[in-house]
Each structure stands twice: as C-alpha cells, then as structure tokens.
C-alpha cells in the first residue's frame, strides 16, 4: 500500500492527505517524530530523504519527496478523471506548475514564520518571513479577485479545483500561527471557504471545517 511519511502538524504533509482524501485513495501513514524528536534529520530518515524533510511517499518502491512533486505524481496516477491535474492540457499544466512553485514560496515564508513562533526555529528572520508571506498573499488575493470576476472559483481556469489549490491551501490557513493575519485578503477568504466545501475535504490540527451556514450552499465539484 502507498505509504506516507507523515506528521500531523506539517502543512506539507497535509497537502497529500488532502489529495488522497479527495481521490479516496487508501494509504498508510508512517508517523515521524518531527518535533521534538527531529526524526526527519536522523541518519535513518536521511536514507529515505537526504534533504531531511517531510513529506515523502513510498509507492511500491518508488520513493518521492517534495509535496508539489508528489501531488503531480499522485494526481497523474490516481485521478482517472484527470481533473486535479489535466495532463493533456499544456496551458493548464503551465499554470498549475507556476502556482505549485508559488506554493513552495508560501512554505518558505508563512510556514517559516509559524515554525519560528510555535517551534522556536530561532534562526529564521521572522519579520522578513512575514513580509514575504504578505507579498505572496497580496498577489494571490488579486489573482483570485480577478478570477472570480471572470466567473472562476479556483486558482487555475476551469470549473474544478486543481493540485495548485491544494498546494496553496495549508500554509495560508495556518498563517495566523506565524503572526500573519489574513483580514486584508477577502478573495483568499472566499476561496478558502469554497475549498473547505470540496467533497472529501479533511482538516488538520489548526484548520477548521467550513461553518454550518456554508454547508447548505455547498456545490459538488468532485
């Protein structure tokens, strides 16, 4: 069975739990003592990922690291509808890749600030990380605002979310734990409310389900 080297409080691991839940793919979590055990930096774990990072998957012997890369792989392999990653559509693939890279930028800023505040990663320049996150959130908020104007609900065109939405979602939702408020990003808020209503959506610690009012207006997208 597909194995995910997993840590509950990791937003990058959560990206994969989300996609696997949307797709209804069974998997086994191998829990890693990321904190305080630092198990991802152990010699044993570096055999699995020399970068000493989560997440990693092992799918029948294929070992892959990097949340974005794994999203591409899992969606290509396990989504027969091809909606999460429309692999025959070059325009979409280009745009999805652009936002996957953007998502890694969110990890480098918003997630870094959260690690600083919650887990004492004291070497991080937290003010720079917060400022960087705000720059990215501003870009995404504007993008989503114009997308909505064009009748588009998701980061990339089309009426179905893609792995780009999944990749951006976790560390935006957890940003307040790093001292990054989101009140100035209304389009991001509306998008994240829509995201939480995707059938199969699951939470992680620190992310809450859509409010009850939202349920009624839910619209099937899967």
């Amino acid at each position, binding site marked *: 069975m597909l194995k995910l080297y997993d*840590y*509950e*409080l990791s937003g990058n691991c959560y990206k994969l739990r989300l996609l696997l839940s949307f797709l209804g793919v069974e998997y086994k979590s191998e*829990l*890693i*003592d990321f*904190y*305080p*055990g630092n*198990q991802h930096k152990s010699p044993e774990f570096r055999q699995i990922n020399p970068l000493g990072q989560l997440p990693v998957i092992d799918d029948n012997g294929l070992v892959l690291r990097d949340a974005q890369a794994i999203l591409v792989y899992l969606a290509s392999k396990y989504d027969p509808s091809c909606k999460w990653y429309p692999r025959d559509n070059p325009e979409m693939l280009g745009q999805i890749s652009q936002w996957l890279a953007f998502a890694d930028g969110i990890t480098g800023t918003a997630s870094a600030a959260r690690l600083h*505040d*919650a*887990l*004492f990663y*004291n070497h991080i320049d937290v003010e720079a990380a917060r400022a960087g996150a705000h720059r990215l959130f501003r870009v995404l908020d504007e993008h989503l605002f114009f997308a909505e104007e064009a009748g588009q609900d998701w980061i990339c065109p089309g009426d179905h979310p893609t792995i780009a939405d999944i990749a951006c979602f976790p560390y935006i939702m957890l940003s*307040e*734990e790093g*001292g990054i408020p989101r009140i100035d990003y209304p389009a991001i808020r509306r998008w994240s409310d829509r995201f939480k209503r995707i059938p199969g959506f699951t939470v*992680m*610690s*620190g992310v*809450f389900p859509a409010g009850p009012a939202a349920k009624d207006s839910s619209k099937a997208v899967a």
Partner: protein
Amino acid sequence: MSKPKCEDQVALNLWYTIAPIAELEEPGAQQTILLEQQIAYARNAAGEVVVWAHEGVPGGVPEQNTLPVQERYGYVWTTLGSPNSDIFPIPEYAEADRRNIHAATFGVNVSAPRLVENFLDMGHFPFVHTDILGAEPHTEVKEYFVEVSEERDEIIASNCKFWQPMAAAASSGGADVDYIYRVPHPFCSVLYKSSPLDESRKDVIAIFIQPFNQEQVRVHMLLSLLDDANNDTDIRLFQQTIFGQDKPILENQYPKRLPLDPRAETPIRADKSAIAYRRWLSGKGITYGVIPPAA
C-alpha cells in the same frame, strides 16, 4: 541580573519549567526567555545543569550569579525570585509502570492564564477536538465540584465527566471519561483522566507554562500514562494533534490577557472552575498576563 522587567512579585517568586532535560544533550548553551528576561541553560563540565540570566550574549557557562535550578518531571525548573514553596508534587510520575513522555514544547501567542483556563474547560471538546475528545450530540458538561485546598494552595475540580470518542492513543472506542483537574501553580495545571487500560487508575497530563512575556508563552506538556501498546512517537503525536487544534482558538482570544474582574466577561459555559481560577489569581495578587480587577 539587573532589575527584573516583570514587576509582578508573585510571578517572579514562582518556579518555572524552562526546557525538557533532554534538550541539554545538545552541545553549547541554549537560550530562552522567562518573564521578559533572557536566560541561558547548559550543562557545565561537571555535568550539572546551570541556568543564568544575561542581557543579549550568553557567554560561557558562568560559575557565579547563576539562577536556582531543579530537575523535576523531566524538565529544568528555575526562578527569577525567591520561591516560598517547593515545586508542586505529582506523585504519579514516580510510579514504576507509567510512561513519562515529554509531548512537546509549543510557542503560543497568548497569556499564560488564558491557556490554563482553556485547559480547564471541557465545553470545547466536541467542537474543537471533534471525534477525539468529544462529539456532538454529547456536548453537555455535567455538574462537577470545585474546591480550593487551603492546605495545598491549589484548585481541584473533580467529578467531571465527559463522553469521548478517543480519549487517548490507547483507546479502542468511545467511553465515559472521568476527569480531575488540579491547578497547583498560577501557570500550571495537571489533569487526571480515566485510563483506558485500568479502571482504577488515571492517566496524567500536565502543562507547565513558561511566560515569555504577558502575551506570549511556551507550554511544556508532560504525559504520564498507562499504555503498553503505543510507541512514544504515537503517544506524543496524539497529544500534539490535540494541542494543534487548541492553538488557533487560544491565539484568537481577545483580549489576550485574562480579565479578572468578575463583570468583565460573560464567562463561558461550564466554568465554575474558570471562575474559581480567576478568583484564586486575584486573591494571590497576580498581575502578570491578566487584566486586574478595577480597584
């Protein structure tokens, strides 16, 4: 140490956990903050734990002007003042068959008393820890007892009962769980909950809060459990999952400091214990991390 930045003499005279002892295996001095004072800790050449205050550069391990140190429950404790009592007892910690596990130390942008109060509140279980520590429709907090033990100077809430889908990593299904809460220190609490393994005994979960300042803390979480099935990682991560759910709730509390004026806030449901806690803090004259009652 120059004049302390914290002006609350009661808070200054308390013992505080500043780190799990395991952290001292790392080479060099570690740094943290206690009540706005920068402090460092390390083992000296003789292997003893040394804690000292500094103003920016910790330097090498000093031989003089160090702070009092105790090692207790797997953590290093220190104080910036002169405590008039010892660290409170947790007798269960010494029981031979218990698993004593440091679950985590987490930074939280909230005051220490708000964190203690959330820890005492069972009402949030079904909504915040859905399908783990609670689930709808089992939302009722039944009547429980609260007393302040004069002799031990601590608050005890007992006879608390709650239905829980997954009370601990060792649980195999839902159960009615009995709780006892102790608040033996203004910024620490110890809870006892029915053990899934042994009806006659209880699991222990303790939080020891280290205030960085009045609105930012770190919390050290100790588990002392009966569990012969799960490994340390599973036990630890179960507790982290729960705390990760509380964190955004705590950080969104407004105001961040706990108002002690009885009229200040419509108290949340089920908070006999919260009311007792606020009154107890007022009685002690604690001003740190609270909004004192208007005179």
